[in-house]
């Protein structure tokens, strides 16, 4: 198993889903443990390792979010810990984007993160989420439409600053 290439995208996905580095670390560790367990459900002949691991990461993230629903609302955590310089440069843009993504309905958020940030093909996202490709497309469209609406004000502000 190529952990070096699989770890970063899984970690980023878990981080963007939970907004927490510590939770992302726990999730990623659990993913690899699940794959290495003797009674692992992973079947190389049926599912690529990356798809399987994203599926485990997704389940773990959803489980964790269900335990603390407030986490998704905590946009300040989702933006990471920006340095004063970066804050000065980017203003609140990063936090605003993080907040907007985190406020998306769960299903739309997963699709957006996997499609936009991790650049997974729609068919693979469908396998990870165990839904139809058409459902993936529709969720992605709705997520992007919602984000355009939410972030329109920030976009306008940026234009003004330019």
């Amino acid at each position, binding site marked *: 198993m190529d*952990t*070096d290439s699989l*770890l*970063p995208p899984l*970690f*980023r996905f878990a*981080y*963007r889903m939970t907004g927490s*580095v510590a939770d*992302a*670390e726990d999730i*990623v*560790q659990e993913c*690899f*443990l699940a794959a*290495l*367990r*003797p009674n692992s459900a992973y079947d190389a002949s049926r599912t690529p390792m990356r798809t399987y691991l994203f599926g485990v990461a997704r389940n773990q993230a959803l489980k964790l979010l269900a335990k603390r629903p407030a986490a998704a609302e905590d946009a300040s955590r*989702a*933006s*990471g810990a920006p340095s004063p310089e970066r804050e000065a440069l*980017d203003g609140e*843009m*990063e936090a605003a*984007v*993080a907040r907007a*993504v985190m406020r998306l309905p769960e299903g739309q958020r997963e699709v*957006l993160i996997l499609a*936009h*940030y991790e650049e997974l093909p729609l068919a693979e996202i469908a396998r990870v989420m165990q839904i139809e490709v058409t459902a993936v497309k529709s969720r992605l469209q709705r997520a*992007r439409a919602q*984000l*355009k609406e939410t*972030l*329109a004000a*920030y*976009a306008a502000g940026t234009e003004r600053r330019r």
Partner: protein
Amino acid sequence: MNDTELDEMLNQWKAPEPGAELRGRIRGMKPHKRRFAWHSWHPGRGLFAGAAACGVALLVLVGIAAPETTAGSIPFTVDSEYTRHNRDGSATITEYRTEYMRDGAQVTLSSSFPDNPLMTIHNRFFYALQNLMYPMVRAVHGPNPRAISPETVANDCVWPGAKDLKVISHEKILGYMTVVLRLPKHAGNDGRDTEWRAPALGCFVLRSTWETAETDGSYRLTDEKRAINITINHAK
């Protein structure tokens, strides 16, 4: 806002990279070895496995020991070969069998199939078990109704009430005089069944043939049993 502008905005949200400690932890993970789990063990499985193992072991022991142990308590054994005669004139030995006479019936002690070792093992167990169970079967069901009686032996191996059974001739096989009997025809079968029975050996069949009827009215030998060795147990 168009799609490109949205993508640019989304790209503003950077995710941190996994730390070195996490990378080290993940790299150090090894696949777990499958261990025996007591929580998943069920007593029934163990009992079943144990009983099955004991059964197999018993069959093996019986299969190995029974022919030898029984051999000492019987008056004689006959080794025979079974041959299949092909239409092209060739012949194939299909089975070797060692038999003896018990309570007026021929009993197989062991058999082997030159071309089928699995069948050999199967039959070895089967006959050994059958011999082992015989006293019990005898006690429950009584004597074999088809056993050859002393009267039959005295009557040239022609059992009382036999219909269409013909004595054809007398021949000597391996030093024993035999009565050649043409058996009654089976319904719906035009073949011919012949047996060579030795009265001195309790009417044991030292030879038998099966001939199939040809269209021209002749008979062709297809299957044959032939005694190749007789061992008398003088200790008895």
